[in-house]
């Protein structure tokens, strides 16, 4: 008996440790939110709840335009990187060169942001120089300007950043899909695209949507690659980091940090809540089915 009693307590303690660790990792984020809602800002003795600093952010034209650029980048990354990641996951299932392919796709996870960004920056500059030289030589003016630092180069940097995550998330959901279903659909006369759209996609939809949500969050958070490759425009995080490092933090900066955190927390919270509800409803229908079978 004593053994069982102690193991119950050690089980509870382990849970407590796990939750405490997550909470500790979140302390800076919650502290930021706490400060951002204080009328008197950071370090003040008094505390009064306000949304004033958030409204200041949304009245600032510079920040609104930075916000717009960030959203546009996030949308374009989702539109390009998610299909690429999906195609990559499908390719992985059939290719013979699995190890090399996985290494190529997952290596960007391991290479630190500043190193990737630096090498891409020099790569794009070289490419841009070579293309404009080629355009001058051949007179084909459309050749030049493709890889001048700007939206496109930032987008390429973000695709490389997000593709490993998308690839893994989609691959994990695909693990539960039986490829025989595609074969069955094909032998019934469906084209590859139809078999994918009508049979496979509905089953891996959850994975694709979570991958898209992750992509939006990752793009929203990203700083290093975007700020090196973006050229002229500003994103939300690049404004924030320049305030942190150069002009100093104002109440408004904490509110910006709060917005960045809330976007992530609400999206992830939404996904967790959605999957939990879905699992519950699946279990319920399963139970009803079993009951019906037994009574029938």
């Amino acid at each position, binding site marked *: 008996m004593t053994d069982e009693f102690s193991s119950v307590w050690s089980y509870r303690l382990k849970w407590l440790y796990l939750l405490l660790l997550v909470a500790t990792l*979140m302390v*800076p984020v919650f502290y930021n939110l706490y400060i951002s809602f204080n009328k008197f800002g950071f*370090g003040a003795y008094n505390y009064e709840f306000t949304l004033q600093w958030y409204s200041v952010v949304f009245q600032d034209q510079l920040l609104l335009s930075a916000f717009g650029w960030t959203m546009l980048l996030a949308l374009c990354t989702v539109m390009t990187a998610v299909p690429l990641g999906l195609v990559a996951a499908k390719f992985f299932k059939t290719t013979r060169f699995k*190890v090399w392919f996985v290494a190529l796709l997952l290596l*960007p996870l391991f*290479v630190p942001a500043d*190193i990737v960004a630096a090498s891409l920056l020099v790569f794009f500059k070289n490419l841009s120089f070579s293309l404009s030289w080629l355009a001058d030589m051949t007179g084909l003016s459309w050749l030049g300007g493709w890889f001048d630092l700007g939206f496109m180069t930032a987008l390429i940097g973000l695709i490389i950043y997000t593709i490993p995550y998308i690839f893994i998330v989609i691959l994990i959901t695909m693990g539960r899909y039986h490829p025989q279903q595609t074969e069955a659909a094909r032998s019934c006369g469906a084209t590859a695209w139809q078999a994918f759209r009508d049979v496979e996609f509905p089953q891996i939809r959850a994975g694709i949507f979570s991958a898209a949500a992750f992509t939006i969050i990752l793009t929203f*958070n990203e700083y290093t690659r975007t700020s090196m490759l973006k050229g002229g425009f500003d994103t939300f995080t690049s404004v924030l980091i320049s305030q942190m490092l150069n002009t100093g933090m104002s109440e408004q900066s904490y509110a910006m940090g709060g917005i960045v955190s809330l976007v992530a927390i609400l999206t992830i919270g939404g996904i967790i809540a959605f999957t939990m509800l879905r699992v519950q409803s699946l279990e319920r229908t399963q139970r009803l089915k079993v009951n019906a079978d037994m009574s029938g």
Partner: protein
Amino acid sequence: MIRTNKTQVGGGRTILASPTFFGRLFGDNGLQKYLFYLPAIFMVVFFLIPTLLTIVWSFFERTLFWMEPGFTFFSYINFFTSARFDNFLSSMFHSGISVIICFILGFPIAVFVRRHVPQVAQHRVILLFILPFMVSEIIRTFMLRPVLGRNGLVNTFLQKLGIISEPITSILFTPLGVIIGEVMSFLPFIVFAGFLAMEAVPKYIFEVCQDLGASRWRVFVDIIVPLAAPGIFAGGVFIFVNGLGVALIPNILGGPGAVNAGLIATQAISALDFPLAMAVSAIMMITLLGLLFVGHRLFNLTRILEPIA
């Protein structure tokens, strides 16, 4: 055999089965075949080639605003014979400590979740660690300043409890601050990698060990760690390399001299010394690939991918 243009399948949905123009273009032997090569081509062109070219560019000669083709070891000499190399070595040391702390704090969680949490709930518990990981690193790192600072959260809290009378000022802007920042940033990774790796340790092994009377420590050292080694190693390499490469953490939390490879590279770019930045990048890539190669020879890293392959 006559093929009709439209075929009824399953629940009555009409699908096209004949080789129309659209079908030929996107059919099995059309563009579709090449579509699947697109991710690989993209990654080779925009990731593999640029990172490999860093080695070539690192031998170029520096000009006033850019660089020109040449073959000089100047950037490497500049790196290895200046304070940069000492900083690089000490950032390696700090990164190593971060890896050990992350392992001690994070890996037991992966073991606990795999062993004691019901199978259906395991992924949801791990999802908890996605939350801090998904909040921007900028916020998590920068906000450690007010948390750990002189009038910050930790000091106020400890003072109110009466544990300390004077605020502790030796955390921020010291190597300790950098290590705390790295652990706070990268801890979820060892949990994820460990969780994947623990797939290789079947649950019955714990029961067998218990029946045979093996101590917990013995089970951990002789059974769990060897079986989960590929995942632990991958997580460790990730933390180590990012500790060396993420410029933000020493930039915000480190004091003078807290400079890692990422910061050297970004500072070199700001100073328009592109060959030096490329040399640092090349050194980082070689370090990373060397570590992965050694790990692969020792533990066969492809084993981690078995659950998803």
